[in-house]
């Protein structure tokens, strides 16, 4: 396939639409990661939470023959991971990374284990008739060429991920709880000194984080695909964390960063036909995250140094003595 051919397909409506579809679980999980990170806890169980929610949603919706019940139980299962993390980290003093790694392992093992028991298959749940979240056609837009492919016909969670980004932004910056959450993350002592219940805030942050990640997981097994596969999250929980940092720990930045990751993923598939290996394209956002981090820290250092120098010049050249 020629270069122009590839260019054509990249700028096609299908491609843009596919970016949105691929990015959605990352957006959702990253929003969860953001909430937790801003409260002062790096939640590395996003991966395990997504997996558990994906699994439970499929299983419950198949056996109870109800989409709503499936979604509900999926979320609850994901929240269970958050609850365990909160108990072990906030109350039993386990280091948050060790507890997180343990819970991820438990999620991986638990889901495959139960999958095998329920279906006799360790690979996927194709034998189960699980439900799918609805796809939505947007009126008016669905009749416009190009835009109809790009904007309409997506799964409801795709749209929801944008709405939730906005809601999370409102929550973090316009509500009392959100402000308290950010205060706790930045200076827990200051927050405590004005009467904020730091422990309670940390719990809430972890639960909200788990909730968002659960949605991301449900998307994987009940929208993107309509079954559960072992390890289907394939590291998206960690990509979500990277998106939190690449996005500057702000909701809209995180959204864009998540789309960047999704975009490069989609791009890498297209470029495959140009003999550019997908992996080389896929690493770009990861390298970018490191570079962004380094640049940011260097700037911090430079700003502090500049301030010091400014004071030194000002104070030492002034003639006034500090005494009488």
């Amino acid at each position, binding site marked *: 396939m020629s270069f122009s051919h590839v260019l054509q397909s990249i700028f096609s409506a299908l491609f843009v639409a596919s970016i949105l579809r691929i990015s959605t679980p990352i957006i959702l999980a990253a929003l969860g990661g953001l909430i937790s990170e801003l409260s002062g806890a790096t939640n590395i169980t996003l991966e395990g939470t997504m997996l558990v929610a994906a699994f439970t949603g499929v299983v419950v919706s198949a056996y109870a023959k109800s989409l709503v019940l499936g979604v509900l139980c999926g979320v609850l299962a994901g929240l269970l991971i958050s609850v365990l993390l909160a108990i072990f980290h906030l109350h039993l003093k386990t280091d948050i990374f060790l507890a997180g790694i343990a819970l991820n392992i438990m999620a991986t093992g638990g889901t495959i284990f139960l999958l095998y028991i329920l279906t006799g298959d360790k690979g996927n749940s194709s034998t189960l008739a699980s439900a799918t979240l609805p796809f939505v056609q947007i009126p008016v837009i669905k009749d416009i060429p190009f835009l109809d492919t790009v904007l309409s016909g997506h799964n409801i969670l795709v749209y929801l991920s944008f709405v939730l980004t906005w809601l999370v932004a409102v929550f973090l910056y316009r509500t009392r709880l959100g402000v308290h959450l950010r205060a706790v993350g930045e200076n827990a002592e200051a927050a405590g000194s004005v009467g904020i219940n730091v422990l309670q805030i940390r719990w809430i942050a972890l639960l909200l984080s788990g909730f968002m990640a659960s949605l991301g997981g449900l998307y994987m097994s009940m929208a993107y695909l309509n079954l559960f596969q072992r390890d289907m999250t394939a590291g998206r929980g960690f990509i979500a964390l990277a998106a939190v940092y690449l996005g500057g720990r702000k909701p809209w930045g995180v959204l864009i960063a998540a789309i960047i990751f999704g975009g490069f993923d989609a791009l890498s598939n297209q470029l495959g036909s140009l003999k550019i290996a997908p992996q080389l394209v896929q690493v770009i956002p990861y390298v970018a995250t490191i570079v962004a981090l380094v640049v940011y820290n260097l700037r911090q250092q430079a700003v502090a140094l500049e301030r010091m120098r400014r004071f*030194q010049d000002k104070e030492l050249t002034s003639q006034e003595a500090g005494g009488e």
Partner: protein
Amino acid sequence: MAPIIEMRDIVKIYANGVVANNGINFSVERGEIHALVGENGAGKSTLMKILYGLEQPTEGELLLDGKSVEFKSPHEAIAQGIGMVHQNFMLVPSFTVAENVVLGDEPLGKGGMLDKKQAMQITADLSRQYGLRVDAEATVDSINVGMRQRVEILKTLYRGAQILILDEPTAVLTPQETQELFVAVRALVDQGKTVIFITHKLREVKEISDRVTVMRDGKLIGTQNTSDTTRESLASMMVGREVFLNVNKAPQNRGEKVMEVRNVSYVAETGRVMLRDISFNVFAGEVLGIAGVEGNGQTELVEVLTGLRPAASGDAMVHGKVVTSKTPREVRMAGVSHIPEDRLTNGLALDVSIEENLIVDRYFNPPYRKGVLLERRVVGKLGVDLIRKFGIRTPNGLLPVASLSGGNMQKVIVAREFSSNPAVLIASQPTRGIDVGATEFIRDQLVQKRTDGAAVLLVSADLSEVMSLSDRIIAIYEGEITGVFTEAASVSEEELGLYMLGIKRQSWEEMEAYL
């Protein structure tokens, strides 16, 4: 009219036996600016912590407007209208001034959302009402220390504080910022607030307060109208001491110049000048004591001289080798040892064994190191030797340092820093917070080192320690040397106190020859 605050017969004894407050009767009149002065350790912070609910008195009672009250936590004190501005600020750096002022009790608008306009309005109103100039929209990490302090004050006012306790507020301020603070304090009082001002700076007491209470060694020495006092009279109340230590000191045999400090200046991150053009020499065979109340630049001076901070300007040399703006190892290699003022933070690794704590300055040289090997036996032997020589109470040197008492921990540091045969020994608050036995021992050791020919720089807020151990004394106040005394035995505590508190100063011409 009853005083707005009355603290009766307050006694506070901490768990470790220290009597911080010993039968204090303290009262504050409504609408006054009341200064509470005393040296470090006098008990003034403890008294205010009790008032603010951070501590509970062992005995005594508290009356607010004539009514008996008990504060089990700061929240209860705040609810009753008492606000405190601590030395270390409790602000969220990325939040704006307004957001910090209303933190924890944010005004809500439509639909339960934060009302940012309200918050700004409240902040602006309070700011205008009390003359506390702040930029409500600026983020806290971009404003200077003076403004940050005003934000803290606004926080207390937002919560309805009628009585404000300011804990050493000028410790972090530049001179201009201090003046701005005073203007604000007067405005507060004009509006009916009462202000308690903890400080050790007597000039400020005279400038701003209506009445002043002096505390010393856990007791309240007296309360007077400020107009009836002079700085000298306050100084003598603060500093006068009955106890004088008996230290056997061999006559001095001063040798050559070992350390030369030339025009050292240092500016803190906050912009405040901590050291201004400091110059002095230290000679072999003498103890040069630096007398000053903590917070006048001594900490920074020691850190500059030991490689932990770079000097902004000026330098210091040991035997001709420059030691400023070098790494700590280079400074140590030049012959400088350092007993740090904060032994737990800097001086020791708590979960590491005693013997391994003793070698951090020498592990890379023979005999402790042979090629790639750390010679454990040599290390062990050093441990045994030093434990014996310095009387460190422990069954063996393999136990972690954390298993020792405070005094023994300090002995480990002393053992290490002394045994490296330094040319210059810098000891910063070497006996702070440790038991009498260890204190005596360490002081004897310091004097012995000096008699053996080392140059000792002693920095201590304990006046009697400085006076009895030093051969020569330099007084420091607000980052400058205010006086030098070549015959430590001949200067009185009161006199020295005046120089430490910046009330008296020697001119450069008077000092030059003796520094």
